[in-house]
């Protein structure tokens, strides 16, 4: 208890005494976290967009020949339901298909009236519980007699998944890189204060101070720097992101047909990520900077 109180007292004194250096490293770590935060938000948004895209493509449509009776279609549905990866299958008549067209075409629906007979096929719709099983389900469906065609959107899904995975991996790489840079920045700052107190540390060791007693104040110092940086970064990232949502929210909705993750929702998450991250960066940085001084 006394050790903890001592550590905090010392740390605050140190941060204040070396305020130029402390502020400098808070600035650089805030900058790192700012960039990191924007990548984090990018990753979150891409993740959300991918989720949406997947949901859109998790339905297969099995087109039936006109000669296939509804009874045999029902039998097919029965057996499809037992296939691995299928969550639901139901009959979708040509009439319902036409109805859907009418709704989609809206004002222009009268054009459909000119058709002599309904050209749309009856079909079975299947929702998948697991997108990666799509190919297998399609194989099964194609094998049924009376099936005309099963269009495959798998290639398209693969493309999307590949791109979004790429973006997320890239963002992760940048995040990891920035975390490492931040640790180095903190450890250099702390090293300066450690060097300034090298004599004190060596005396502490001679008098029999434990490593944790010596490390304590520097650890708290690093954590304080990390904590301040994290809070500053959350504020900045949110300000920037709110602006982005305001400027590009509409475009994103049109272009990607998904909305951006709302800013206020992210604030809590970002604080939840940044505070522990900033504090860990500070702690790690200070432990690294002290290693040399505490090896015996």
């Amino acid at each position, binding site marked *: 208890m006394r050790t903890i109180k001592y550590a905090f007292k010392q740390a605050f004194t140190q941060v204040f005494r070396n305020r130029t250096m402390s502020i400098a490293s808070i600035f650089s770590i805030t900058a790192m976290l700012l960039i990191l935060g924007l990548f984090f938000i990018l990753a979150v948004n891409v993740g959300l967009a991918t989720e949406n895209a997947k949901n859109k493509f998790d339905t297969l449509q099995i087109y039936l020949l006109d000669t296939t009776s509804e009874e045999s279609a029902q039998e097919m549905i029965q057996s499809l339901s037992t296939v691995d990866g299928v969550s639901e299958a139901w009959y979708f008549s040509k009439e319902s298909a036409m109805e859907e067209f009418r709704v989609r075409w809206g004002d222009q629906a009268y054009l459909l009236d000119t058709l002599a007979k309904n050209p749309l096929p009856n079909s079975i719709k299947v929702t998948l519980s697991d997108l990666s099983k799509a190919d297998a389900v399609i194989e099964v469906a194609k094998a049924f007699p009376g099936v005309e065609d099963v269009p495959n959107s798998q290639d398209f899904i693969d493309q999307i998944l590949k791109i979004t995975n790429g973006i997320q991996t890239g963002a992760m790489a940048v995040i990891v890189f920035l975390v490492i840079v931040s640790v180095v920045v903190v450890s250099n700052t702390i090293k300066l204060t450690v060097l300034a107190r090298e004599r*004190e540390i060596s005396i502490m060791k001679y008098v029999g101070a434990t490593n944790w007693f010596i490390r304590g104040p520097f650890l708290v110092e690093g954590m304080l720097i990390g904590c301040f940086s994290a809070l500053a970064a959350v504020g900045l990232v949110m300000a920037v992101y709110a602006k982005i949502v305001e400027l590009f929210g509409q475009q994103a909705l049109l272009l990607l047909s998904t909305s951006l993750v709302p800013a206020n929702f992210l604030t809590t998450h970002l604080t939840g990520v940044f505070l522990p991250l900033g504090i860990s960066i500070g702690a790690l940085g200070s432990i690294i900077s002290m290693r040399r001084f505490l090896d015996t």
Partner: protein
Amino acid sequence: MIEFTDVTKKYGENIGLEHANIKIKDGDFVFLVGPSGAGKSTFIKLILREIKADSGTIFIDGMEVTKMSNRMVPQLRRTCGMVFQDFRLLPKKTVFENVAFAMEIVKFSQRTIRRQVPHILSMVGISSKADKYPHELSAGEQQRVAIARAVINNPKVLIADEPTGNLDPDTAWEIMKLLEQINRRGTTIVMVTHAKDIVDRMNKRVVTIEKGHIVGDVREGAYINENY
């Protein structure tokens, strides 16, 4: 009790200490003498586990230093007070704070610290300087502060590496009398020195090291070689 059994420490090619055997009983006062580079500092660093022996065993107050885990090193150092030629006081702390610092590290309460520090300061004879900073003190006074700090937690052993090296003869002699007084209270003292006159005058046990070997060990001895 300090006990070295067949202790060897080499720095690559350089011999620090080789096949050293010695026993220092509780309450002894031992001078460690020898030419420069003989291995005196090596001997002291081995006691404090600043360096590890290559072979042999070292016991300090029942603790086997040579087998000790790093976690136990602070415990060992609390058993040994240290005094250096260059005093090693903290320049931004007052005399009182410098001494109190040693107690804070060992987690004494502020109440105990406020009671104990003035007591020890008066014992070493610098009560009046309690609120001064090290740079406001003479060399002899600074060494007294260092000694106060070294003994405040009641170490079993006080180790001094040339404590009078930076002092004029009269001041040096006063410091020696202070060390003798501390020794009389039961603290074992191991003191490295090049000061022939002090060794001769004190008439204590003298251990001589040369080229990493203990070549002489006399009770109530005198400095042997004029050339050291």
